[in-house]
């Protein structure tokens, strides 16, 4: 006799039976006819691409059947459809070989974000108030087509395109769309777009692209402020290489030295961490080169054209003695000599400069110095740690920051803006530009702004018409990774799932527009959909590779793209640039703000969770504890404990960070890994409007940056601002760890 019988015997009262009646009839939503048939509970894997940074990792999306609440011609109901549950690296893809970074893993939340724009919106209230009213696609597209025709009739120069740097099919489509309309070239903008390093590589090695650091063949890595294991260049490829660099080769463990003003997530892994005064990394590179050229008797010609670019290189860099460099950088001369000796002793060694090092007014000179140093060490080339991924198409870009400022000047130059119609796609310049650039003011002046964004962020909130794009898992994607692999790669991915909301892919909208506008646009863009455009590109590739088009396309769809299978041999050797004899003279970095009034160097850095703010709207990343400070859901200012003591500031106090261009407030975190005269802050928070998880949360360091730039490329020197710190009360920190500095159990061997 168990519990059930026991209770049955004693509980057969009328009351219980009476209650039986008041159950509730099951009322449910109607259920739509599913389009695809799914085996319930069994997962399928479909290739896709991660859209979150320039590395362009290949992704495998795990798709399982589930019930989604969708709206179909006016009725809401449940639709049994394939839903992406998780993203994992595509094991076959040469860039990330089955791995992903933290942001890549969190990208799946973009698809199901509660604040995603579900159908086209038309601005109703004042611009920037964020009041929109839903409108259907036909009306939206017809108004846009009408505007476009009107602009084309008046003056095609009135059309402007602003987006993040595009690659592959999208770039071809957009550039051909604008070219046929005789409109100005597209303006690309990205905060951390490393155009300085591309230009330096063009000057040093004739290749205007980011280098591929294959750490697995390196024996010694000297990092100069480059966060190459966190967010810089192709972090996943570099992290895979780092794993082998350390423990992948039995008996051979590489040494890694990091030189930077603040211990970054990458610097934390260094065997030796050396502080340096911000902006002087180039001087250190030249000092090392000096030691190699003079004391180690390395011939100046060994560096080839990379060396010739540096003024004084052929004479052996006489004025860059370790003592002179020590005075500039703050690193003892003897240590510089030792580093130089180690560079030679641990062949092949590689020097990686990036991030804040190149975000100075002398960024180009620094990059050239490092390129020359690498060339001198002989580590640049098909077999060395520094390689260049062969690019099927030209990768040259007009320097983004300069073209954006030119566009803004153009708009603000005349009282009535010459730009009549602005198309915005996946770019948030209002958030990611210094106030002095006045991008918001310029956008206000443009009569009609159209945004293709899936979310209302700081920039798309100013739009008049929002045509929500499919999210990356719902659309056809292709990409040509610039770095991170040896073989040439053209990634390709079909949509992993059907669109969840009433959205359309941006390329398809452009093609639809070109049909509505008709005329020569129609002939220039013959494809009916973006899939056709990609198919055409891949057919061309198949012809070049001499393979059957259909099989080639099918295999590319299955594998997640095309890459030349013959592995590393094909890595392109550096071409020798035209022998222009222009030389660059290394100048000390120019900082904005006087030392007396603004005693601290301000160092915004790309954090693992937010990179440049584009992923701040994902709850997983907001709640991801920053690895060094364990802070979540907000922003903070890192300060040296001794400096804090001197200023009477305690952990968690609110401080005013003031520069010549603005001020912000954020709580302080004391960190023993930052120089006394440097103040650091993560980029990514402080959005005025960016979905429920990121709106009005934390402070935006870019809002206090000075508009200094690297003269030759016009790139923003975002690490060249000086600030003043003043205590402003008690702030609120959300820390995951109550932790202490010391680890109680010595694990070190």
């Amino acid at each position, binding site marked *: 006799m*168990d*519990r059930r019988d026991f209770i049955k015997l004693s509980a057969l009262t009328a009351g219980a039976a009476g209650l039986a009646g008041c159950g509730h009839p099951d009322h449910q939503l109607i259920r739509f006819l599913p389009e695809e048939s799914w085996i319930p509970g069994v997962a399928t894997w479909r290739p896709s691409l991660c859209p979150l940074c320039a590395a362009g990792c290949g992704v495998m999306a795990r798709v399982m059947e589930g019930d989604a609440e969708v709206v179909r011609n006016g009725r809401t109901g449940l639709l049994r459809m394939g839903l992406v549950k998780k993203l994992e690296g595509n094991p076959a893809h040469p860039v990330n070989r089955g791995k992903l970074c933290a942001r890549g893993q969190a990208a799946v939340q973009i698809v199901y974000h509660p604040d995603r724009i579900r159908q086209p919106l038309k601005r109703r209230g004042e611009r920037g108030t964020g009041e929109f009213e839903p409108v259907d696609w036909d009306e939206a597209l017809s108004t846009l087509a009408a505007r476009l025709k009107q602009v084309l009739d008046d003056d095609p120069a009135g059309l402007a395109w602003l987006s993040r740097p595009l690659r592959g099919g999208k770039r071809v489509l957009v550039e051909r769309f604008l070219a046929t309309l005789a409109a100005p070239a597209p303006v690309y903008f990205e905060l951390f777009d490393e155009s300085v390093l591309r230009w330096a590589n063009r000057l040093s090695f004739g290749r205007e692209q980011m280098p591929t650091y294959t750490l697995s063949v390196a024996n010694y890595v000297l990092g100069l402020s480059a966060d190459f294991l966190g967010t810089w260049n192709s972090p996943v490829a570099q992290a895979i290489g780092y794993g082998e660099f350390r423990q992948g080769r039995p008996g051979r463990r590489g040494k890694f030295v990091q030189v930077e003003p603040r211990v970054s997530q990458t610097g934390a892994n260094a065997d030796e961490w050396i502080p340096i005064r911000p902006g002087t990394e180039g001087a250190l590179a030249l000092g090392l080169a000096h030691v190699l050229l003079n004391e180690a008797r390395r011939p100046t010609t060994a560096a080839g054209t990379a060396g010739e670019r540096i003024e004084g290189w052929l004479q052996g860099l006489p004025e860059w003695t370790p003592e002179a460099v020590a005075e500039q950088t703050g690193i003892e001369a003897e240590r510089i000599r030792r580093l130089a000796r180690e560079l030679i002793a641990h062949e092949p060694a590689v020097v990686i400069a990036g991030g804040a090092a190149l975000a100075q007014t002398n960024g180009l000179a620094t990059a050239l110095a490092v390129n020359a140093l690498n060339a001198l060490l002989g580590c640049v080339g098909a077999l060395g740690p520094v390689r260049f991924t062969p690019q099927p198409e030209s990768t040259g870009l007009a320097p983004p920051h300069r073209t954006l400022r030119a566009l803004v000047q153009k708009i603000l130059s005349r009282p009535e803006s010459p730009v009549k119609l602005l198309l915005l796609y996946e770019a948030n310049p209002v958030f990611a530009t210094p106030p002095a650039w006045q991008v918001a003011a310029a956008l206000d002046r443009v009569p009609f702004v159209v945004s293709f964004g899936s979310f209302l962020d700081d920039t798309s909130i100013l739009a008049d018409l929002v045509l929500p794009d499919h999210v990356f898992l719902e659309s056809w994607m292709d990409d040509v990774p610039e770095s991170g692999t040896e073989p040439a790669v053209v990634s390709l991915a079909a949509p992993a799932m059907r669109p969840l909301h009433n959205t359309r892919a941006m390329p398809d909208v452009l093609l639809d527009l070109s049909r509505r506008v008709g005329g020569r646009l129609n002939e220039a863009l013959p494809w009916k959909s973006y899939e056709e455009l990609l198919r055409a590109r891949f057919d061309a590739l198949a012809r070049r590779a001499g393979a059957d088009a259909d099989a080639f396309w099918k295999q590319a769809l299955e594998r997640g793209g095309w890459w030349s299978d013959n592995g590393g041999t094909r890595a392109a050797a550096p071409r020798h640039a035209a022998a222009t004899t222009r030389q660059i003279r290394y100048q000390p970095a120019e900082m904005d703000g006087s030392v007396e009034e603004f005693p601290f160097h301000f160092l915004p850095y790309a954090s693992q969770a937010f990179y440049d703010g584009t992923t701040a709207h994902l709850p997983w990343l907001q709640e991801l504890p920053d690895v060094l400070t364990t802070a979540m859901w907000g922003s903070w200012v890192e300060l040296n404990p001794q400096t804090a003591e001197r200023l009477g500031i305690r952990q968690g106090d609110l401080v005013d960070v003031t520069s010549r261009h603005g001020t912000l407030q954020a709580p302080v975190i004391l960190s023993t890994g930052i120089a006394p005269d440097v103040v650091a802050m993560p980029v990514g928070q402080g959005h005025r409007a960016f979905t429920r998880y990121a709106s009005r949360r934390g402070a935006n360091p870019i809002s206090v940056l000075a508009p200094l730039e690297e003269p030759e490329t016009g790139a923003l020197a975002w690490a060249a601002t000086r600030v003043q710190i003043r205590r402003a009360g008690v702030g609120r920190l959300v820390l995951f760890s*109550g*932790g*202490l500095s010391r*680890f*109680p159990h010595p694990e070190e061997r």
Partner: protein
Amino acid sequence: MEKTASRINDDLLRPVLETSPRFYLAVVLVGLVAALGFVAWGYQIWNGIGVAGISRPVFWGFYITNFVFWIGISHAGTLISAILRLANAGWRRPVTRCAEAITVFALMIGAMFPLIHLGRPWLAFWLFPYPNERGLWPNFRSPLLWDFFAINTYLLGSFLFLLLPMLPDFALVRDRARGWRQRVYGWLALGWEGTPRQWHRLETAMHIMAVLIIPVAVSVHSIVSFDFAMSPVPMWHSTIFAPYFVAGAIFSGLAALILAMALLRKLLHLEEYLRTEHFSNLGKLLLVMSLLWFYFIFAERLTVWYGNDPAEMAVFRATQSGPYAPLFWVMVFCNFLLPVPLLTIPRLRTIASTVVAALGVVVGMWLERFLIIVPALAHKFLPYSWGTYAPTWVEITITVATFAGMVLLYMLFAKLVPVISVWEWKVGRHPLAEQRAEISPAVAKTVAPEGSA
């Protein structure tokens, strides 16, 4: 002063037979506060235990402090009355029932906390080993299951230990009262007549129960300490915890007893029955326990400090000089520095001073339980996951409500039953009472006659 039997009856039964309006007012007021506790608990069940202040890594807070505190309070009652009965101390007669009542009510309140602190209290029945078609049983290796058995045994034991001597008193009221009281007490008296056979059986039963209840009481608070000692948390995992908790329990129980007796003496005008030597005797016991408590805490902290294990030292420093230091020193003051002088100097040992010492000890012992649980959980082995704890209004309301609940139960008990056992008091006044002690005749001969009651 000679007290005729009927005058004694009148004095002791007056609270039972007549009820003044102030009693109703007091019941409603205290009942309201107690009800607030239930409202707070309902709010917590409805919204999730997150409304309480506990978080990671301090998963136990006020609730388990209250649990240990109230189970501690319950120990003095039965323990003291049992020991005094076995020792046949004449002055125990007015004290035993007050003490046993504290035990039962404190246990009832304490036993509620294992339910209140649960994340899903509606599944608490899984703690009970009932046969079910799943074939699942509770895990008897868990100290929480030992708690379940120990507290239930102790509750049942001390309830019966309280009930048995009340039977003659119920019969007394049954014989005197009229109307509904006569029927109710008639029912409660279980047909007690008062034949010598019944008296002898009752005394033998009380004697055996006294012998049994002491080890049960000691085991209950040892098991409550095993809840902490069994887990490898720094400054929890130590062998001293069982005796330390039992000493602490008797210590706080004694204090509660003194407070209760002082209140009864004041409110029910039992000055002749609860006289100063009762308070001084209990005061001496309190002094002994204060010294014993200090000995235990010194022994534990010396061992930790001398051993210098990094994890344990983190907790040690947190209480000695860290964020919990003020509470720690308040506890030492309340448990040792306040009671010892008050109770050692005879001149100072008046009823008022004993009550003040007892109040200090009750507060001190609540803090002691808090300082055992929270700092140790906040500073475990990996410094990365250290945390803090701050109670919310829910926990505070429930804590206050438990004190109100205790007072309410005690007032209702004093209304239902004569707080001083009438027949024991009368036996105490028999001139020849002491020759033939209640212990079985064999022992009686060996016991030398004591001073009269």
